[in-house]
């Protein structure tokens, strides 16, 4: 009798341990969660209500840029692509994407168009103009699911991106996965660790007081772990972005989002 009781209690303890280890690791259940869910009601309202969302100013700027003739070819975006609401619908859900054999981010593709089609100089990363055009294009996919898939063409880049995600880096020797996979839902200091899905970019981040790209956000984390940051517009960035979009596949885009 006594022996049986001991076995029961050991079993119970084991069950308890298992339960707590699952509770400590909510990502193991792998239900995708947008960091929108972690925001306060005020911040949620700010994102949802176009009259409160400051990112809509960039969308407005993007609309005028879309019509502006530029470069040596004196063409505007609209000269080729016409109405942005029709031609760019769903486009942002597919990027980063292999274009002519090269992995291209949405920002990269905008600059490619500027250089080759318009004959205009590239826009700098995080410049108001590039963010405005990105926000305008991303808005046309609002509510649509991220549709990045693994294909024979992007397979190698996706694998490299996954490796970057799991690779420890910097003086703190941390990988993206250690926080955003293994410890998502737990706390870092006072704030909840989000799963790190790129489903609302470009975002109006209150901390930045401005709109910013996914690459700015990634560089933030990299400096946080005291690592050498990937360069803006680099292939490493594009590969990591591709993996993140693939990881968030199926999630609806919220662009342009608001984050604290």
């Amino acid at each position, binding site marked *: 009798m006594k022996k049986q009781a001991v076995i029961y209690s050991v079993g119970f303890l084991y069950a308890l341990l298992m339960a707590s280890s699952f509770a400590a690791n909510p990502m193991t259940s792998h239900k995708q969660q947008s960091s929108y869910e972690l925001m306060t009601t005020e911040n949620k309202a700010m994102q949802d209500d176009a*009259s*409160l969302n*400051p990112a*809509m*100013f960039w969308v*407005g*700027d993007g609309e005028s840029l879309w019509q502006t003739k530029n470069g040596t070819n004196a063409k505007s975006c609209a000269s080729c692509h016409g109405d942005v609401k029709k031609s760019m619908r769903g486009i942002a859900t597919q990027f980063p994407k292999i274009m002519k054999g090269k992995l291209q981010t949405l920002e990269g593709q905008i600059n490619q168009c500027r250089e080759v089609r318009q004959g205009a100089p590239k826009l700098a990363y995080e410049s108001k103009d590039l963010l405005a055009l990105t926000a305008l294009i991303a808005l046309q996919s609002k509510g649509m699911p991220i549709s990045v898939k693994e294909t024979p063409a992007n397979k190698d880049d996706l694998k490299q991106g996954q490796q970057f995600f799991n690779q420890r880096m910097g003086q703190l020797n941390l990988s993206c996965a250690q926080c955003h996979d293994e410890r998502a839902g737990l706390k870092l200091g006072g704030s909840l660790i989000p799963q790190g899905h790129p489903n609302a970019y470009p975002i109006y981040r*209150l901390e930045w*007081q*401005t709109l910013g790209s996914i690459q700015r956000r990634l560089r933030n984390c990299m400096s946080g772990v005291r690592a050498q940051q990937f360069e803006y517009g680099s292939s490493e960035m594009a590969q990591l972005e591709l993996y993140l979009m693939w990881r968030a596949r199926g999630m609806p885009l919220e662009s342009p989002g608001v984050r604290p």
Partner: protein
Amino acid sequence: MSKTSRTSITMPAQAKKGAIIEIRAIAQHDMESGFRYTEGGKSIPREIIRVFTCSYNNTEIFKADFYPGIGANPLIIFTTIATESGMLEFKWVGDDGYEANNQARITVT
């Protein structure tokens, strides 16, 4: 030519006489505090909106002074009483010749 920027007003287009209406006014502005420095260590000069005013059929009904502690793209939400049909005019004035104007019409029944 003075500088300006985008602004946006959200308020009801119609209201009953005597009703309290909510007005939201947001302006696109960096609100550069004057306390920041460039990567090279040079101070970035202050450039903020200084005053916001709202007038209802040419009578000033709301005024706010802005300070460097106010964040970028400031949003002001305030209320007023719908007294008569007419025009509400909004004006933001700031450093370096910044000025932005917007207006909205209201029908009071």
